[in-house]
């Protein structure tokens, strides 16, 4: 994927966030303060605006997203996603394309960023769990080509699996046992990110590299 492909991915994600805003908010109402949809929509709307006039390389498009999310989203998810995209931008410095082999390290950079920022190690029932499983599984398979369909599949499975956990971080933690059974909003918005990645790659048709 080059800068243009990535910009397409982010545009698509911005659309999906707008569309799923109410749903994300509903998930957050059950376990948090009911603003995850509004928070994300505020940030990604601005990303879409910025992308309209954007002309830059691969690391710059990630940096643009990072800065925009950090300065527009607020709440917990702003700094967390912001850090993830910042770390990815740093990893991509000097590159013009994300190749097959880049995915494990790229995802690791993002996932570690979230883990550090959020002070989580996994199992706290946050978006980190999804990022971590995607990054770790990709790494374990080192050598095999990473397909976006796999990333999506792992993300979905994890988001589903952590429903039964008790939240230990973020606002949902205040619920204690009452958080069990509910979806985590940040985990779900992360799944959507991989879903749109996969859609973007698939719809390019093209060389099948990513399929």
């Amino acid at each position: 994927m080059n800068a243009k492909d990535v910009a397409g991915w982010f545009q698509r994600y911005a659309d999906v966030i707008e569309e799923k805003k109410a749903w994300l908010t509903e998930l957050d109402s059950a376990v948090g303060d009911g603003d995850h949809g509004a928070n994300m929509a505020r940030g990604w709307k601005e990303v879409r605006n910025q992308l309209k006039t954007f002309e830059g390389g691969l690391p710059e498009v990630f940096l643009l997203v990072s800065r925009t999310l950090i300065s527009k989203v607020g709440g917990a998810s702003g700094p967390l996603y912001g850090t993830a995209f910042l770390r990815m931008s740093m990893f991509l410095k000097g590159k013009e394309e994300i190749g097959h082999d880049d995915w494990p390290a790229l995802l690791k950079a993002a996932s570690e960023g979230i883990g550090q920022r959020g002070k989580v190690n996994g199992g706290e029932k946050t978006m980190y769990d999804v990022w971590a499983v995607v990054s770790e599984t990709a790494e374990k398979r080192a050598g095999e080509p990473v397909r976006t369909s796999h990333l999506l599949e792992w993300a979905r499975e994890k988001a589903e699996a952590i429903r039964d956990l008790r939240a230990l971080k973020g606002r949902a933690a205040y619920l204690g046992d009452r958080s069990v059974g509910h979806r985590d909003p940040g985990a779900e918005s992360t799944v959507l990110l991989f879903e749109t990645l996969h859609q973007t790659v698939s719809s390019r048709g093209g060389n099948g590299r990513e399929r």
Partner: protein
Amino acid sequence: MKWLRKKKSHIPLTEWNTSIQGGSLLKKVMNQPEQIVKEMLEGMILAHPDRLRGIKESGVLLRTDAPVEGKVGLVSGGGSGHEPAHGGFVGKGMLDAAVAGEVFTSPTPDRILEAIKAVDSGKGVLCIVKNYTGDVLNFEMAVELAAAEGIEVDSVVVNDDVAVEDSTHTTGRRGIAGTLFVHKVAGAKAESGATLPEVKETARKAIGRIRSMGVALTPCTPPEAGKPSFTLEEDEIEIGIGIHGEPGVKRTKLLPASRLVRTLFDRIREDLPFKAGDRVAVMVNGMGSTPLMELNVVHKELMACLREKEMKMVEAWVGEYMTSLDMAGFSLTLFQLDEELEALLAQPADSVTIRRGGN
């Protein structure tokens, strides 16, 4: 009623009260919900031009005389919807700046950074942060950015809510109304010319001695969400509620004021624990729509509890300090004083909400 009739016909509600979900109307005094924070901040500055000025489009309220030469700057803030927190506590002897985010949403690092820069006189800046993941993360990033710009900056995190279990593996206790006592003592300390590490140390000491807990009788309704943050039955209350309408620790039937106060008091007292002979400041904080009449009844009951446990009240704040929009309910805060803290609490302050002369 000619004066009303002669106006042209009413603007349809949908033209302005539109973001309402499920079609139900929000009975609030507002224009567009998306504009409410901005308009509120403008209103505050217009009401108190001698005390407050703003940084355009940033949600930051500053002391008119910031940065104050030779004084550590104090910055606090968080989501809006807790008025008068935090803008009402900006002024001599308290905060130098308050940063307001959207309703119940932490402000972003760039805005916090603007506040830090605006109040730094070269003596450094301390951020007073309530323990919510969003607030902590955004302030943390702002502090990193400010440090990168060469500003001496640090932060403390307030976690006074005993309703939430404390553990290093979890988010830990929330920061609620007790935060305002931290503003007061840290503010007085900074005003004395203390260094950043000294002000931080005083703030940390205070945090270690402040405990709070709240109860909700009704939920609150965020202007953009347009529906209550949770639901309570007609005869139900939620004990241990957070200031954003996050669920509390226990639902129970409505209790008489005496029982309610004792329940919160016991939990707060046992936690530190507070003990006989302690000199304490107390706060009876209204959540937004509980009348002052009821808060004073609560205070009377609280004083009975203190007397029984032979604790001595040396200062009382009874009113609205850290609200949750239009939630009905209240929180209690106890602050175990030592000589330094008691003296700092008594120092002059000149903010919109807390004003006291020199004595």
